[in-house]
């Protein structure tokens, strides 16, 4: 009994010491950082809250802080913080509730988040600020159009990324099978038929995330019913259960029924889908221009950049939309907090407007919604093609869920794979989403 007691005491005291040490250390690391300013008053930092998963924006900002924006950085030092995407909306909600938003922050997983924050009146009116500074033209027209259609005609976010979306195709597979670049949906289906009978999977698609499939539905709707088709749904002027809308879902489901997306599409994740296209196993791939990062990586790209072509989503015969209206998005745009909009932040905003586009394209190969002037070095040819395409585009359309509340988006994306594997009928798919829209 005695020995046991002594041993216990020993163990306890060791544990106690360890605990005390750990407490001290955690207390230290606590005081090491600066505590958030509770009043929300001016701070000496220009803090930026980023998606952990996005590295290009923070790298560009860091590069600017020692380069073009070093003056602004002297006033307010750039401080980058990260939050994983999975918990980002939650983090924004918690921080906004405590008026603890950073100077600059990624605006969340869905446009609705930024709209909510804006409606509580804590966002800087970026558009007005830029106008006052004489930087009206800093945001290119196509990007401005996208931002305005996303955010009820206002500009309170910075398009630090600008992506156009369309169908990337394997030129070699097209040539081998005698396929011309399709101009209409029917041509596209015919091209897919040819590829399939030649033993090539026509489309590669990420069914795990779902959105690459619903993008097809959305594009079809824009092409057949015109550019206002989905804002009509959001405004309640039309319903997704209307025959013309259901047709879009049926057309995409029909591709799936023929096996054109390959086996078990619901289990294919993004990385696998990209790999299927880049290893030449699939002939076509609907994706946004951010995927250029993967295309330009020679270890991932086995078919070669010169073998990849880009086409806008084709027109629908007799439809109201045109193939010139590229689907576009601004990635996750950045917003700025009013509480921390001091002189430093002001200088940063102007500097970002002037230089972000060039820096980002030069260092990261990422196309932004800012005007690019100045030397950008060697841009890979495929990236250049896309950049040219953007410059000649004035009118863009959004994606399927862009104007939907988050619940409807989730319903749409989680059921996308079932739509193309036949697990759910096109009618049910659309009415499920419509039910969520009606709930609002």
């Amino acid at each position, binding site marked *: 009994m005695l020995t046991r007691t002594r041993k216990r005491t020993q163990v306890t005291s060791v544990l106690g010491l360890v605990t005390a040490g750990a407490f001290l250390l955690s207390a230290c690391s606590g005081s090491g950082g600066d505590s958030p300013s509770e009043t929300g008053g001016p701070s000496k930092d220009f803090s930026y809250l980023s998606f952990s998963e996005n590295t290009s924006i923070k790298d560009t900002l860091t590069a600017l802080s020692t380069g073009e924006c070093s003056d602004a950085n002297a006033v307010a030092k750039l401080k980058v913080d990260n939050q994983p995407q999975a918990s980002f909306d939650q983090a924004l909600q918690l921080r906004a509730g405590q008026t603890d938003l950073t100077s600059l922050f990624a605006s969340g997983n869905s446009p609705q988040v930024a709209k909510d924050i804006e409606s509580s009146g804590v966002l800087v009116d970026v558009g007005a600020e830029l106008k006052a500074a004489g930087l009206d033209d800093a945001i290119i027209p196509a990007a401005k159009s996208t931002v305005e259609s996303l955010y009820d005609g206002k500009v309170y976010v910075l398009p630090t990324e600008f992506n156009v979306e369309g169908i990337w195709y394997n030129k070699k597979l097209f040539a081998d099978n005698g396929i011309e670049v399709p101009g209409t949906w029917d041509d596209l289906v015919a091209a897919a038929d040819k590829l399939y009978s030649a033993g090539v999977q026509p489309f590669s698609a990420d069914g795990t995330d779902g959105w690459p499939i619903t993008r097809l539905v959305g594009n079809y709707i824009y092409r057949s019913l015109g550019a206002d088709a989905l804002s009509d749904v959001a405004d309640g002027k039309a319903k997704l259960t209307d025959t013309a809308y259901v047709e879009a879902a049926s057309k995409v489901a029909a591709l799936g029924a023929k096996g054109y997306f390959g086996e078990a599409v619901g289990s294919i*994740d993004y*990385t696998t889908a990209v790999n299927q296209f880049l290893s030449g196993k699939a002939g076509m791939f609907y994706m946004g221009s951010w995927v250029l990062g993967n295309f330009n990586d020679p270890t991932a790209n086995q078919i070669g950049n010169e073998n990849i072509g880009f086409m806008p989503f084709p027109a629908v015969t007799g439809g109201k939309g045109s193939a010139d209206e590229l689907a576009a998005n601004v990635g996750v745009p950045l917003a700025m907090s009013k509480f921390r909009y001091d002189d430093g932040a002001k200088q940063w905003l102007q500097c970002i407007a002037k230089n972000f586009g060039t820096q980002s394209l030069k260092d990261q190969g990422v196309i932004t919604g800012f005007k690019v002037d100045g030397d950008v070095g060697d841009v890979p040819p495929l990236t250049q093609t896309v950049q040219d395409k953007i410059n000649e585009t004035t009118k863009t359309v959004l994606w399927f869920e862009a104007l939907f509340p988050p619940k409807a988006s989730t319903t749409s994306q989680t059921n996308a794979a079932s739509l193309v594997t036949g697990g759910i009928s096109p009618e049910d798919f659309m009415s499920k989403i419509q039910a969520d829209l009606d709930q609002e």
Partner: protein
Amino acid sequence: MTLAPAPVTSQPFVPAGTEPRLRVPRKRRIRSVGVGIISAILIVVVVFPLVWLVLGSLKTQSEFLNNPAFALPENWLNFDNYTRAITEGNLGTYAKNSILAVVPALFLTIALGVAAGFALEVMVWKGRGTVLLIFLAGIMVPGQMILLPLFTIYFKLGLTGSLWPLVITYTAIGLPLTVFMMATYFRAVPREVFEAATLDGASMLRSFFTVGVPLVRNAVFTVALVQFFFIWNDLLIALTFTNREDLRTIQVGLLSFQGQFGQVEYGPTMAAICLNVFGTLLIYLFLNQRMMTGLSAGSVKG
């Protein structure tokens, strides 16, 4: 620092229940073959993922995507993934944070939980049943619920920006189960043991330390083991309360190699998981060793 060398057992190895259980000798050999087979199957079933993990951590992205899941890596000496996991994945800092948050929380949970379990099960007073039920209710509430209020509280107290929110939350979250289990274990101890101690004139506080705690020592290590893995593997709380990069825990760090559009860099992710798993295995083996010592001392059966 938790890996401080295990205290060397001073007493010789005494098997539990020294008298062998009754068995029939002629069945002995058949039995040992059976035991071997069962053990082998079990080991294969639980260990194969380890093989998969190690294989995966040595593969490049294209090998991972294009070759079968259990294919051997093309280059056995490809440690790039490990280098990236440690440098880009900041594994060192994250591991330090995890230890700094988990160890104090674990110690507190166990210390407070054992004391509360004793007070609720051994001590006799009115209302103890109700208090035990209140603790029990804690394992029924979904953890997601306490996040928003807690965030507000920690913010008002100025605790955000440190590891304190994690330590405090982990301690509290672990309490219901610890209290509940400790009460269960104390229930198994015959009352007379404590009554005898009090007859000797010891105060209850004293008999808690000299009689109560040693009696449930195995249980303490079992509960500690269970709690350790719960809080070590926690993602939800760590994601919510770590608002700065340098406060991230190791589980949050495992998300480092995922991209904004759903890309995953499998190699470095698996390497990071490997390092994490082998680290925790060491801790587990240490705690397990302690459990064994406790059991062989046969303290519960006394």
